[in-house]
């Protein structure tokens, strides 16, 4: 049985207040919800990025669980290494066979889609029992909002700036969740911080799986998205309502849609709330890019419905 809201609120706090993430940052919301989903011990690996630098400024730490950061591109290998040691010591009887420790890797989209993709793919293929959570804010935020392969078409970032000639990022975002599902891994899912029931249920499911699982969380970043800090949750909901970021899971090869908006909201509603797309609302070129974004959203949505047997 998934935990209800009361039980979740009573779960031990594993990422405490006092960290220095920006006001309205989506990352701690996601991390707390994921970690609240298990009552078993959890050991975390963290890639370099906003979460890591803002929660562990020496001599302080916001973590009440064992936590390890080694580098940017290796969160999956780090979690895998700890898990490998746990399995070894358990098999040798050096750790109690009845224990059930969970291993979680937290990494940004840069640490996942780009530089850490090889380590993630390798760890998944090898079948380590671990949950990999991508805190996907669609750019390298920690280093000042550079584009990643998760940044969407048209996004104004510091390395895909909206200029006089080029209207922000000229490429679509990589569909990483589908890419992970194509590993034939036991569990891959997408979610948002705006729907606590969806995210905690997915984390619970991931923790019970005897193998690798992957959850890709669209995690608003008020600083990089240039949106209001109090709108983190509602903007993520809008991402689901526009079908820009559908909520679904692939459980042992079975594609399941987890949320179908009553009415598919035009993607402009999502874009217009964020300064990173502001330039798209001026001039013909911007309009053309918004048309392409909508077209892409529609295409990916139909593709997803088809995969989920819902078309």
């Amino acid at each position, binding site marked *: 049985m998934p935990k209800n809201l009361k039980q979740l609120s009573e779960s031990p706090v594993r990422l405490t207040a006092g960290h220095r993430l920006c006001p309205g940052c989506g990352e701690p919301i996601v991390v707390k919800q994921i970690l609240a989903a298990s009552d078993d*011990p959890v*050991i975390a*690996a963290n890639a370099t990025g906003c979460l*890591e*630098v803002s929660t*562990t*400024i*020496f*001599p302080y*730490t916001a*973590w*009440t*669980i*064992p*936590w*390890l*950061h*080694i*580098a940017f*591109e*290796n969160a*999956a*290998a*780090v*979690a*895998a*290494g*700890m898990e*490998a*040691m*746990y*399995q*070894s*010591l358990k*098999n*040798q009887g*050096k*750790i109690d066979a009845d224990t059930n*420790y969970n291993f979680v890797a937290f990494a940004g989209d840069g640490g996942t889609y780009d530089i850490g993709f*090889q*380590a993630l*793919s*390798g*760890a998944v*293929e*090898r079948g380590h029992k671990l949950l990999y959570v991508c805190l996907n804010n669609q750019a390298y935020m920690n280093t000042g909002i550079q584009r990643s392969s998760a940044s969407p078409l048209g996004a104004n970032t510091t390395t895909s700036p909206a200029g006089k000639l080029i209207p922000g990022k000229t490429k679509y975002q990589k569909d990483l969740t589908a890419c992970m599902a194509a590993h034939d891994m036991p569990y891959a899912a997408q979610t948002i911080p705006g729907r606590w029931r969806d995210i905690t249920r997915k984390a619970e499911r991931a923790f019970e799986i005897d193998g690798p699982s992957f959850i890709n969380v669209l995690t608003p970043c008020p600083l990089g998205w240039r949106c209001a800090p109090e709108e983190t949750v509602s903007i993520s909901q809008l991402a689901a309502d526009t079908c820009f970021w559908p909520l679904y899971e692939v459980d042992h090869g079975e594609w399941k849609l987890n949320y179908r908006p009553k009415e598919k909201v035009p993607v402009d509603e999502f874009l217009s709330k964020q300064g990173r797309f502001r330039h798209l609302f001026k001039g013909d070129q911007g309009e053309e890019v918004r048309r392409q974004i909508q077209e892409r959203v529609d295409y990916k949505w139909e593709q997803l419905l088809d995969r989920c047997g819902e078309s």
Partner: protein
Amino acid sequence: MGQLQPLEGNLAVAEAMRQINPDVVAAYPITPSTEIVQTFANFVADGEVDTNYVAVESEHSAMSACTAAAAAGGRVMNVTSANGLALMWEILYITASFRQPVILTVVNRALSGNINIHCDHSDTMGTRDAGWIQLYSENVQECYDNLIQAVAIGERMDVRLPVMSCLDGFLVSHSYEMLEVEDDEAVREWIGPYKPNEPLLDVENPYTMGPIDLYDYYIEHKYSQWQAYPAAKQAVIEEGKRFGETFGREYGLMETLGLDDADIAVVAMSSAAGTAKDVVDKLRDEGVKAGLLKLRCFRPFPGEEIAAALAGCKAVCVMDRAASFGAGSGPLFHEIAAAMYTGGQTVPINNVIYGLGGRTVKPADIESVYRGLMEIADTGKVEQVCTWLSVRE
């Protein structure tokens, strides 16, 4: 009692690993060390070890997983060469900073480019500032003995540092030699059980490892790491002695030949030092007072001990199996020259770069180095500080 056996260097390393029986091995194949990984995988497949063997997708992940596994709290080993070591480079510093005693066998091979699979020391020399202890082996017996000692040295509570145990690619890794293989039980007893230090698997005592560490603390942390190396040097000496007491083969920071009364001496590491020993014997038969310093422990660098050992010579040549491009000489030479100078020595000293990419170094080549030293000893003058040995121009 141990047993005399003919084994290749790689097989001797694999055998030592089987006896050590680490909790986790995460490794990736690369010539000339691949055979170690393969042989060890067979031990795992046949249930001869308790090791969880993680066949990672790259050396970067190998060293990441090894560092994490060690931090989790257990004994960890790894194997690589050349480009593999270069790919680990970022993580090597972190392993040492975290004070995790990961044990890495490096079968020395030339770094690309151009790509080459044969021996030189450019790979491990390139990691000399990473904070790892480095031991170099002359032959098959030594690479077996050094690996066992590496575990004991690195895991000592006053040390807690990762160790590279290095052997020459092909020259030792693929050479069969007779060696004394000790009994499993004796080896296990000698290294003792692993003693964890603030392990992350201790969930009752959560530990934040690898935080962001800025200008208000980073330098103190580096300084505290700095202070571990004198203890590490002492550990190399003490464990080498203890190894000798148990198994009859004693080791130190270096091995010397004829240095008590030598006029001319060569400093070399690894298999070339074995060749140099024959040359010293030959020259001694001719009445030339030749000597040899074979450096075993390059990190921590025993500068004072080296300067003292070479003090009585009239000319010294440091042989480097690696170039330090742009520096004008090789890395071993830089450090020895600095140690001699700060040790108040004025012995004329020069440098020879040799054997890159597996170029054979013959006794005659090394003899030519000694002949050059005879001239310097006579004149007291070093005409050219660094020369490349037996190279076509």
